[in-house]
């Protein structure tokens, strides 16, 4: 059986995810095949595995750091919030059903079984597991509902490392209090502590480290500094409203409707020096960007209604008519069409809603969810991207809707849906309007393709009368690699790895 270690936090923003990613990379560098794992995730940012299963993005990032392929066992339960107290529950990468909290917790036995299976499959296939917890493990009012902290640690027989954020003060109290509220057995499971987000030289907190060790009897493995240079996909929530690069030339507005999902699609623009990206929620915030993106949505009809209510719809249509570039991804693509119907009432009471009618497509929502990685061949209908047949784009589809092109609209891409490396089905996707400035696709991660992203940016620059961006920048993948390695180097520098390895392997 493989070994395991779990990273838990004293609060939800203690830095668990990032430290788990750091540890994954360190282990990979040291020759271990590690698998990241989080038993239960709540997020609207998801990803599709090779086998076509939907999982949380955080574990995909950690898998990439661990240099292994993301698989469904790493994130076996995903909750995608769709309304107050209601989530779409994804089990083992496939839609189970929409549930309220009470109904979900009533399924605890089924959920535990899924978690156990996922852990044992991972243990059979990897050298070790790096588990991530959620929130704080000592919320006593939620103890019987715990699936993500001590319960998961117990299932995986994982020693626990507790991470505490020192940035806002109260670090001693949060550590001591958390340990105090755990049960005797749970407390025994905690083998080490990491103090995170220290501003200044970690050396300066030496006396603090000694006091924590004295108070808790637990070893402090290290003090991690505040890392503000890190650039990795955002996890569950948007951290900033504007990501602006010095001397940017292209202004991109992403419409941040309430059910916005997969906004990690746009992380790839953040490292482009000529780009500023803004998340817009109000008409007044839209202004006159060079590109407007309608992202994916977990609640398409609701979010389209939001566009009408906020008057963003009229403004987007107006700017589209003035020639502004508009792109719809997934749910956003559907919204750009003539109408969206929901005959089975999947999203609530509205059976039909008119779209922005910028594209001649119609969408019918359906219960069946398409979740596939795809390889896309461009049909060269986008003027700015003329590619050869060999130049394929990669990405993935996640949608519960079928879109048809009306009249004689031409598709943009030929998608080869993959399942476990085999072509399963070929479909045609996307469309563009007559003047070429409005288009949409189901393809998530399309901007991860360096050639495509660069062509789009150069197209926008040229349109403004600016010269194309000739600077040969690093590819998106290289930038992420740099970040994982930087993270790992910081981890090695500040964490007592020998002690941590002892905890993991001598357990």
């Amino acid at each position: 059986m493989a070994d395991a270690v779990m990273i838990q936090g004293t609060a939800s923003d203690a830095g668990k995810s990032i430290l788990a990613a750091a540890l994954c990379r360190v282990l990979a560098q040291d020759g271990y095949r590690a698998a990241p794992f989080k038993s239960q995730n709540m997020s609207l940012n998801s990803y599709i595995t090779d086998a076509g299963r939907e999982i949380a993005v955080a574990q995909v990032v950690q898998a990439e750091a661990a240099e292994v392929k993301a698989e469904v066992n790493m994130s076996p339960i995903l909750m995608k919030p769709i309304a107050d107290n209601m989530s779409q529950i994804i089990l083992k990468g496939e839609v189970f059903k929409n549930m309220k909290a009470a109904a979900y917790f009533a399924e605890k036995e089924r959920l535990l079984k899924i978690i156990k299976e996922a852990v044992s499959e991972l243990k059979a296939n990897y050298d070790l597991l790096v588990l991530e917890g959620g929130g704080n493990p000592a919320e006593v009012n939620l103890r019987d509902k715990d699936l993500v902290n001590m319960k998961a640690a117990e299932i995986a027989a994982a020693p626990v490392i507790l991470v505490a954020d020192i940035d806002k003060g109260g670090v001693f109290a949060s550590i001591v209090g958390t340990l105090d509220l755990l049960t005797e057995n749970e407390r025994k499971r905690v083998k080490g502590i990491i103090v995170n987000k220290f501003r200044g030289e970690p050396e300066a907190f030496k006396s603090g480290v000694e006091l924590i060790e004295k108070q808790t009897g637990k070893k402090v493995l290290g003090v991690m500094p505040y890392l503000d240079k890190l650039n990795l996909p955002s996890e569950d929530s948007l951290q900033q409203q504007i990501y602006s690069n010095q001397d940017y030339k292209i202004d991109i507005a992403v419409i941040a409707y309430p059910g916005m999902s997969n906004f990690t699609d746009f992380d790839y623009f953040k490292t482009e020096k000529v780009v500023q990206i803004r998340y817009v929620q109000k008409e007044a915030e839209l202004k006159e960007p060079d590109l407007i993106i309608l992202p994916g949505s977990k609640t398409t009809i609701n979010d389209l209604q939001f566009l009408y209510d906020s008057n963003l719809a009229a403004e987007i249509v107006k700017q589209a008519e003035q020639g502004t570039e508009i792109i719809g991804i997934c749910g956003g693509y559907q919204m750009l069409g003539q109408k969206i119907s929901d005959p089975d009432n999947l999203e609530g009471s509205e059976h039909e809603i008119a779209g922005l009618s910028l594209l001649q497509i119609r969408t019918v929502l359906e219960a069946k969810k398409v979740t596939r990685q795809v390889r896309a061949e461009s049909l060269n209908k986008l003027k700015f991207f003329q590619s050869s047949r060999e130049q394929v784009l990669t990405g993935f589809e996640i949608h519960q809707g079928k879109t048809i092109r009306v009249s004689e609209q031409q598709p943009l891409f030929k998608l080869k849906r993959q399942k476990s490396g085999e072509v399963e089905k070929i479909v045609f996707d996307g469309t563009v309007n007559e003047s070429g400035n409005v288009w949409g696709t189901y393809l998530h991660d399309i901007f991860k393709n360096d050639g495509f992203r660069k062509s789009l940016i150069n197209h926008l620059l040229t349109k403004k009368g600016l010269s194309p961006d000739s600077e040969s920048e690093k590819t998106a993948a290289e930038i992420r690699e740099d970040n994982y390695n930087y993270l790992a180097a910081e981890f090695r520098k500040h964490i007592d790895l020998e002690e941590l390895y002892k905890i993991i392997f001598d357990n």
Partner: protein
Amino acid sequence: MKNKTGTLMIQGTASDAGKSLFATALCRIFARKGIKTVPFKAWNMSLNSYITKNGREVGIAQALQARAAFREVEVDMQPILVKAMGDGQCQIVINGQVDQNINYQKRKKDYLKIYEQTIRNSLKRLRDNNELVIIEGAGSPAEINRTTPDFANMFTAEIYNSPVLLISSIEKGGCLASLVGTLKLLSPGQRKLVKGLIINKFRGDFDLLKPAVDFLESYTKKEVMAVLPYLKDLSLPEEDSASLNPDQYKFNKDNNKNSLRIAVINLPHISNFTDFNSLKLEKGLRVEYIENSRNLLDFDLIIIPGSKATTGDLKFLKENGLAAEIKKADQAGIMIIGICGGFQMLGRKLIDSYGTEGNIREINGLALLDIKTEFLKEKTTHQVKVKLNSNQQLKNGLSEFNSQEIMTGYEIHMGQTEYLNQTEELFKIIEQSDREADFKDGAVNQAGNCFGTYLHGLFDNDNFRSAILNNLRNKHSIETDKNGYNYQKEIEKNIDQLADMVAENIDTDKLLNLSRR
């Protein structure tokens, strides 16, 4: 005779638990009941300060709390203020006056006696002259690695054995652990002073939280005195954060298509950014904080705020290219306003022979104003009343403004500014710390698009603010806002709303009895 004055202290489990606004609410609640109430915070670390009527410098949170208590802010309410200048350097303000720049970490032991005595004296005077003192702590009282007394927290509580309410934010989880851990790390005597717990920033289903409240009460033997909801639309100044809160980037939501665009340069040591709170409430504005170099030509107004390290921050602007962008904007006729440190930066030269501001002895300014500034050891701190100088250029930019109107503000600066080449001042200071005066302040350039002043709180003057904004609106043929709004009334409204919300969720009579025990 026994002193009957009540004292009640608010401490938090971390720095963003919500102490300051909770204390503000209590000040208003008890003042409305006719109880003579004052706020107190012994020790404050902040770059946002305010000047009392007597010219003493205090943390701005206590100015707001004093106002909530219908009181004029006094230096006793906030006797020790520490202003961080970077690189471990701090300016220590004791009783509202600068002591000296010290390397705080190295020499803080020298200050223990002074701190102790200062805090005791201030609190005694407040207690002698009032009916209720609402005391605010700082950070967490359980930072057990501190090597000096926790002046801001338990040291102050123990002077009169003031009952303590411990407040914790539940927003990010770990609230129970923080409360339990904080209590556990206090000494038995200190723990006894904690009389109640407050859970702050709660959203969601109370039924799910109820077991946690019951557990906390039985486990800690402390009463959970309130569960306060998350308040999102409050427009009170962000006083206490040591640096600009990221939420401030979301500044000004209430704008329309014809918005004026305002850039505030986010200096590394930006201070008194509360100056812009009044802009936050204006309709039809979009205010953005700018820290990276970028083209500024699409803004209608650029503001360079105050700084605790003026020369270093100016160097920062030059190195990252923003200085050049500001000059370009000036040439394009865009309106530029410098406040305090920002005013100094707009001049030709800044000289710092004593190293008051940092390590740079001399640096050229942006040279948009014909002035020169020299930093001295003495700090000028006054509340002031000013009138506009009969200065034609700026009057054109303030067409609707009555030049006879008296405006209020406050000065906090170490530099003295010299006017070169017959440059005229912008304002005449007619009153300084309650005494009649006749001094010059501020300057304006030839074209009339760029001016600077030492006056903090300038935009809180409704007519002046409206005149500046309406002038810009006229320039762009945007409909002017005839009515504007009354900043002071708006602040009052917000304090009242906050107080109402807290009063609804807590037994205020019980708190009052507690304070008098």
